């Protein structure tokens, strides 16, 4: 049996989630005596393709075309569906990234396949993949199986471990898929990057601030702590709605879903909508003066106290530790 792992790249570099997807596919493949082919689509990606071998792909299929440099939902869907057909693959894994979530439903229709979206765990039972996916903003967990011949899954970024890179090389195979202008029904012409700051959706450490910070200028201490930790700055809905921070920093139900290794919530009470966006973080630190704040119910470590005192002390302590 063949399994395809869609290995996402941007600017001809693999995203971290690409390796997570390849590794997760490999772990499933080992239990099904299957083989993993990673699929890389882009404008100039041959030179990086081999890297996917280090995470468990036996071969890497490359579809390279200057017109695929920028993402096009329609053209990418055609390419990916065509490769799945050529390989007669029965299981396909996508990242649950913004690209993966956009692309995977379109591919599923082309192959008449069911898609389990944004899975956070996978297991194999009786030769079948069972996926767990959070629903109701993380307040429920569904176990699902896909019943169609081709089975597709998207995996929430940062949840699956890419593991260590092994000194393994994969066979790289170039394929041509012929594309016409009609295939480019929607094309990303440019990406407006939000300055040089780190994005919460991709950061390994996030420091978030909430309404308890009282004023927008007090986010300065959040930014300082974040920069000491090489972290992204996040925000609660309340401060985004108040106009203190931009929406791209918002973590929660109407913002981004994140799963960093470390999430530090400062002066955030932890409304259920916020918890929905960050409860799958690996370690959670809460700093809040209200000991009954719901954020403490999911925090691994908490300090019940004044953020204005604790945050600068934490920044100083971390700086001191760094210098050692």
């Amino acid at each position, binding site marked *: 049996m063949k399994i395809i792992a869609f290995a996402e790249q941007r600017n001809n570099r693999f995203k971290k989630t690409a390796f997570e997807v390849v590794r997760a596919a490999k772990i499933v493949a080992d239990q099904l005596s299957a083989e993993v082919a990673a699929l890389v689509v882009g404008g100039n990606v041959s030179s990086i393709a081999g890297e996917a071998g280090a995470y468990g792909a036996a071969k890497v299929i490359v579809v390279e075309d200057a017109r695929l440099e920028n*993402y096009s*939902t*329609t053209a990418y869907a055609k390419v990916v569906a065509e490769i799945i057909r050529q390989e007669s693959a029965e299981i396909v894994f996508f990242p649950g*990234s*913004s*690209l993966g979530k*956009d692309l995977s*439903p*379109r591919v*599923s*229709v082309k192959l008449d*396949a069911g*898609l389990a*979206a*944004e899975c956070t765990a996978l297991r194999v039972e009786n030769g079948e993949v*069972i996926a767990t996916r*959070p*629903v*109701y*903003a*993380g*307040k*429920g*967990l*569904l*176990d699902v*199986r*896909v019943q169609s011949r081709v089975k597709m899954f998207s995996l929430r970024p940062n949840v699956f471990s890419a593991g260590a890179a092994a000194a393994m090389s994969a066979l790289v195979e170039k394929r041509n898929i012929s594309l016409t202008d009609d295939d480019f*029904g*929607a*094309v*990303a*012409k440019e*990406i*407006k990057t939000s300055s040089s700051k780190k*994005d919460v*959706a991709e950061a390994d*450490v996030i420091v978030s601030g909430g309404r308890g910070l009282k004023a927008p200028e007090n986010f300065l201490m959040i930014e300082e702590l974040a920069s000491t930790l090489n972290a992204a700055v996040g925000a609660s809905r309340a401060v985004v709605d108040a106009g203190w921070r931009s*929406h791209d920093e918002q973590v929660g139900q*109407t913002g981004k879903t994140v799963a960093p*290794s*470390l999430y530090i919530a400062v002066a955030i009470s932890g409304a*259920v909508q916020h918890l929905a966006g960050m409860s799958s973080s*690996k*370690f959670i*630190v809460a700093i809040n003066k209200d*000991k009954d704040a719901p954020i*403490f*119910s999911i925090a*691994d*470590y*908490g*300090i019940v*106290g*004044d953020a204005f005192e*604790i945050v600068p*002390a*934490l920044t100083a302590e*971390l700086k001191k*530790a760094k210098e050692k």
Partner: protein
Amino acid sequence: MKILIFVNHVPDTETKVKVAADGKTIDPAGINFMLNPYDEYAAEEGLKLRERFSGEVVAISVGGDTHKEVLRKALAMGCDKAVLLKDTLMRDSYAVARALADYAKEYSPDIVLCGKQSIDYDDSQVGGLVAEMLGMPSVSVVVKLEINGNVVVAEREVEGGREVVHSKLPVVITAQKGLNQPRYPSLKGIMEAKRKQIEERAISPVESKVEVLSLKKPAAKAHGKIVGTDASAVPELVRLLREEAKVI
């Protein structure tokens, strides 16, 4: 301009999840349902397009009679017409999308708008599925939309910024917070909505492709450690993060 809006009926965000006796679905007793918040952005955008280009806005939902409530809300916001595709079984996104696409094929809209995801199953699939079923381009998670003639320029939120996507009508757009500020239904709108007919149609359902085996509540997390109550706890916190959690 013919504008089609998909709306869904979801438990409100404060809902406490209780698993129903079947072990697979949520127990609806005592739950307040509401219009999916992302669908409100979709409806608002549709109404704004009608104000600019004239035409009509049709709101459509797949489900049982309870979905009439959200269709009434869409009418109260100003949608011209509401259609309920009647279905009493829980189905996956694929089956729901098929029913919506069948209707859309017949209606042949210039633009389809829906929320980027429904906050019940958080599947983020219906927009893309319907677009592919209709052979239309699509742009998901849109925070800015411009239409000139048949040229569509949409900005979608991606990691680290926004993608500016160029496309053409007809197109499917899925709405993200930030696209607009949804209007509150006016009293007049609410009164008129009560008088408007909701068209009901039967669907020819297709099988779900994703089967739900169980719904469970996540294991409650063990209560964490309160390290202290002031800045003197900071060195201990840093030690724990280093030595116990090993995350810094």
